[in-house]
């Protein structure tokens, strides 16, 4: 009973019924209406925290820290000019700061008019505004400049040493969305414009600007490249099939697939990130590939003289079986990305896998009724613009067969020679490198770091053995010694800790005697200075229990590897501190990115093994032959190796965009193998020779396979023109991988089949 029920389902699945036109159109319409409505609630968000698993140690520490201490997310505005210390400009900058402080997402604004200055006098001690905005009419610009430069904390942070640069640092609350960051950045531009200091604003940088710029690039790329890739796909499809109606139907199919998948992202409440933004282009390109397989079969049925609806049914039947396995292998390649422990990459993998299934449903269930109804005219006899692909595929296959040993040997030699390059690939999370050198953000960051300090935030978090652990003068002195060693590292531009504040109070309480600009030796004095400190900065550096403190660092490197190098050096210094009661950790934005490198490497390995294992299993089930599955996998692994070689040779890192490529390329290139192998095995089962079977299958499927590859390569190459580096790298490397996969398919697969045939013949002969 169960068996017959399963057989009926299998038959139903493997031989799709031709739907009626009205239900098909109704489904298409419903998908567009529902998913179109869902698009309205699509959350465009590329917030950095989305890229970190919630249970990663760095993320857990980050959550703990932010519960006690302020956020480390900032927006830096750099103002330059010779009159910055004039009362007019300082007044305007203070008003800009005031406007920014009123923004609901802003926690605190640092500027020379809004920070405290600790000072001492003959009889007093004062914590006062560094520059009092209400008393700007007193004193001269030069006096104000001297006061700022004489402050312990300002030079290099909010003011350049030459007096020509002033910074305004906006610190936000913990933000969840990129749009909030865009809003903060826009508020800054509005305030600067309203206070007429826009001519002096020369740079806007920091993590807020970075995320806002990424969201902007991501939205622009989605709006530009999705229609462009779809348009190019349709144009190339027209060139191949030479008929307008199938193109219109193709456009409907692409639109249905893309809107369904993006609608699904919205329905699940998942954010649309720079990684998931690549889904529409990927799926629209892959839809064209599947359509071309169907159209190629349709043309063969037309050429064979079948009329509607039979020609559509027969075309469906002829490509359906390999197409179904294509769906399985491609979905397997995509779903393998859920093994990368970075949430947006997992969403990309899962939604793309669903998208591949949607493509199958659209191309094999929804498109055929439309073809039956509307595709009435004649198809061109010549075979369209890609007629030459047949000759090419056959020429490569012939060469592969004739020089099988050379081809395989050559490939092995090349692969061995390229190993050092492939091993050079480095995992890297440097969000700044997502932008070109000419991008305003890159230039702004460079300008900030040249005139002030590095923008990467690192924190040394120290936990003491209990309440008031940091009211111990000796302990503070030991930690301060470490802080000075850390500050001496060339990558560390600035450090700030509670020790600095205490030193400054000690100095001010002693009439600004330089001999007292140090930590007190007496615990009681330390406690009393801490008791009377009434500013805000101390609470940002040590918790109310005086049990956890942090040393804030401004680091001038951005990439995960460089940051990890700094972390390693700091940890080596920490190891020399002789206080076993203390627990040390590195935290902050920089630490998160340093840790992401490990996630990428482990994730790439897992996803690759996952994709490899699943696809190998599917091939094995399809052909029920271990050697066939091995032969099928080899030409598909080669392009991945080639992509890694290229990345190693050109210095393109493994990052959030390039980590996608292995799963995508493996998932797509294996389709060609399945089509070619399927034909080959069918002929072998008919008792044909190896060479005849290879030659005929390349003759029959080679054209569609080459044409589809070229279509996909062109579409991904188009992405390569993006000025947003992740999109560009993803496009270029996927195109390169697909092209390499195509070459391997045409050259190596025939060679391997021939060698395998020879081996089997010899084996049989020897056995006999």
């Amino acid at each position, binding site marked *: 009973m169960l068996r017959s029920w399963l057989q009926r389902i299998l038959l139903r699945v493997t031989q799709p019924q031709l739907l009626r036109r009205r239900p098909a159109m109704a489904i298409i319409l419903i998908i567009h209406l529902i998913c179109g409505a869902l698009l309205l609630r699509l959350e465009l968000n590329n917030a950095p925290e989305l890229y970190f698993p919630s249970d990663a140690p760095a993320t857990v520490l980050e959550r703990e820290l932010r519960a006690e201490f302020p956020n480390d997310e900032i927006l830096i505005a750099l103002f330059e000019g010779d009159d910055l210390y004039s009362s007019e400009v300082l007044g305007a900058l203070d008003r800009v700061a005031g406007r920014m402080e009123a923004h609901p997402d802003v926690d605190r604004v640092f500027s020379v008019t809004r920070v405290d200055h600790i000072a001492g006098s003959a009889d007093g001690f004062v914590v006062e505004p560094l520059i009092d905005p209400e008393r700007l009419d007193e004193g001269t610009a030069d006096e104000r400049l001297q006061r700022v430069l004489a402050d312990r904390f300002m030079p290099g942070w909010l003011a350049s040493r030459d007096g020509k640069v002033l910074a305004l640092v906006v610190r936000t609350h913990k933000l969840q969305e990129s749009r909030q960051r865009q809003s903060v950045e826009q508020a800054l531009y509005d305030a600067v414009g309203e206070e007429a200091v826009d001519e002096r604003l020369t740079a806007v940088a920091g993590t807020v600007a970075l995320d806002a710029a990424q969201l902007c690039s991501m939205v622009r790329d989605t709006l530009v490249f999705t229609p462009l890739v779809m348009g190019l796909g349709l144009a190339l499809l027209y060139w191949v099939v030479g008929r307008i109606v199938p193109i219109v139907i193709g456009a409907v199919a692409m639109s249905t697939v893309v809107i369904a998948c993006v609608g699904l992202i919205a329905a699940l409440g998942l954010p649309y990130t720079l990684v998931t933004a690549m889904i529409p282009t990927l799926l629209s390109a892959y839809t064209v590939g599947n359509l071309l397989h169907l159209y190629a079969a349709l043309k063969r049925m037309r050429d064979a003289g079948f009329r509607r609806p039979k020609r559509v049914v027969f075309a469906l039947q002829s490509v359906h079986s390999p197409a179904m396995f294509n769906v399985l292998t491609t979905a397997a390649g995509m779903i393998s990305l859920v093994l990368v422990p970075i949430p947006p990459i997992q969403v990309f993998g899962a939604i793309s896998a669903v998208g591949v299934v949607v493509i199958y449903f659209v191309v094999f269930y929804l498109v055929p009724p439309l073809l039956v109804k509307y595709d009435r005219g004649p198809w061109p006899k010549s075979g369209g613009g890609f007629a030459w692909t047949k000759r090419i595929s056959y020429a490569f296959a012939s060469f592969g067969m004739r020089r099988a040993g050379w081809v395989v040997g050559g490939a092995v030699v090349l692969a061995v020679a390229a190993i050092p390059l492939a091993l050079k690939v480095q995992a890297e999370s440097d969000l700044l490198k997502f932008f070109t050198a000419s991008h305003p953000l890159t230039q702004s960051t460079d300008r900030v770091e040249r005139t002030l300090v590095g923008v990467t935030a690192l924190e040394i978090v120290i936990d003491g053995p209990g309440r008031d652990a940091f009211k111990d003068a000796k302990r503070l002195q030991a930690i301060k010694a470490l802080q000075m060693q850390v500050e001496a590292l060339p990558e560390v531009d600035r450090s700030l800790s509670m020790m600095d504040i205490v030193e400054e109070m000690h100095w001010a309480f002693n009439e600004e005697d330089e001999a007292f600009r140090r930590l007190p030796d007496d615990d*009681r004095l330390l*406690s*009393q200075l801490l*008791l009377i400190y*009434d500013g805000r900065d101390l609470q940002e550096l040590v918790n109310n229990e005086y049990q956890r403190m942090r040393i804030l660092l401004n680091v001038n490197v951005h990439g995960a590897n460089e940051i990890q190098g700094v972390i390693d050096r700091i940890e080596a210094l920490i190891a020399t501190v002789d206080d076993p009661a203390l627990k040390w950790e590195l935290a902050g934005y920089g630490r998160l990115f340093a840790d992401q490198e490990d996630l990428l490497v482990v994730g790439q390995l897992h996803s690759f093994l996952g994709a490899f294992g699943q696809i190998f299993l599917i091939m094995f089930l399809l052909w029920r032959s271990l050697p066939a599955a091995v032969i099928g996998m080899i030409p598909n692994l080669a392009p991945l190796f080639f992509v890694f070689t290229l990345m190693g040779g050109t210095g393109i890192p493994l990052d959030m965009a390039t980590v996608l490529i292995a799963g995508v390329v493996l998932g797509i290139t294996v389709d060609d193998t399945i089509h070619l192998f399927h034909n080959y095995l069918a002929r072998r089962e008919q008792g044909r020779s190896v060479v005849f079977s290879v030659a005929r299958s390349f003759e029959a499927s080679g054209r569609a396979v080459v044409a589809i590859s070229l279509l996909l390569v062109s579409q991904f190459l188009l992405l390569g023109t993006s000025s947003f580096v992740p999109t560009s790298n993803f496009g270029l490397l996927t195109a390169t991988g697909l092209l390499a996969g195509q070459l391997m398919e045409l050259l190596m697969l025939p060679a391997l089949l021939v060698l395998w045939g020879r081996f089997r013949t010899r084996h049989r002969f020897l056995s006999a």
Partner: protein
Amino acid sequence: MSGFLLAGAAMADEAGMALAQRVYDRLDGDDATSAVTMALVEEGRSPRLRSMLLYRRSAPEGEVSTLIRFTEPADIEGTGLLTIDAADGASNQWIYLPAMQRVRRVDSNRKGGRFVNSDYYYEDLRDRKPSMDEHRLLGREVVDGVECDVLESIPVEAGNSVYKRRVSWIDPASHLPLRIDFFEKDPQAPSKRLRVERREQVQGYWTVMDSTLTDLGSGHQTRLTVRSIAYDRSLPERLFSSKALEDERMEREFRP
């Protein structure tokens, strides 16, 4: 201290101004001496306790002097703070650190500076004249079973307070604010809230015996509990001098 704070908190429509003046003029003796416990309360942690002695003296000409001496814990014992608020609104403040044996004048006009890492700002502790704010009666609301007048106070000059506005719930019988909401950044969302937990009449004067000031952002609380209080003990003027601040012995005889 709460009484001191609350007296200063009240403050324009005519009825509002009159109410603010009544709160300010509330009888609270010529002087007061109290032993107070300050508990800094943070969720999930045991409270941090400090003991202190407070001496307040109101001079007939309108000057208000306050001396605060910490007695516990040991590491801050003897630390003192002297504040003299002149009748014209000017304020002077000195700090004494026993570990340094030194008195230092501190900036008294600082807004938003925290008093000994508590949720109180120095501004909350100073005498605030009703004329420094515009007052408006918002209506009546019940707080802890008492129907209170709701008074809104907005600084006349934005620069003279860290707060954008304050809303006080005033008990018409005692003229004590039973609740005050403080608005710092957002004039619609309070950042701190003071609640009177317990009040008593001591020597005929209404006295806040127990109050809690909550930072509504962090949940951190500062609870002030009066252990004992005595009014009208004829505290001498010399008790409120830099010398007395430096020499604990001078105020020992006046301890409650």
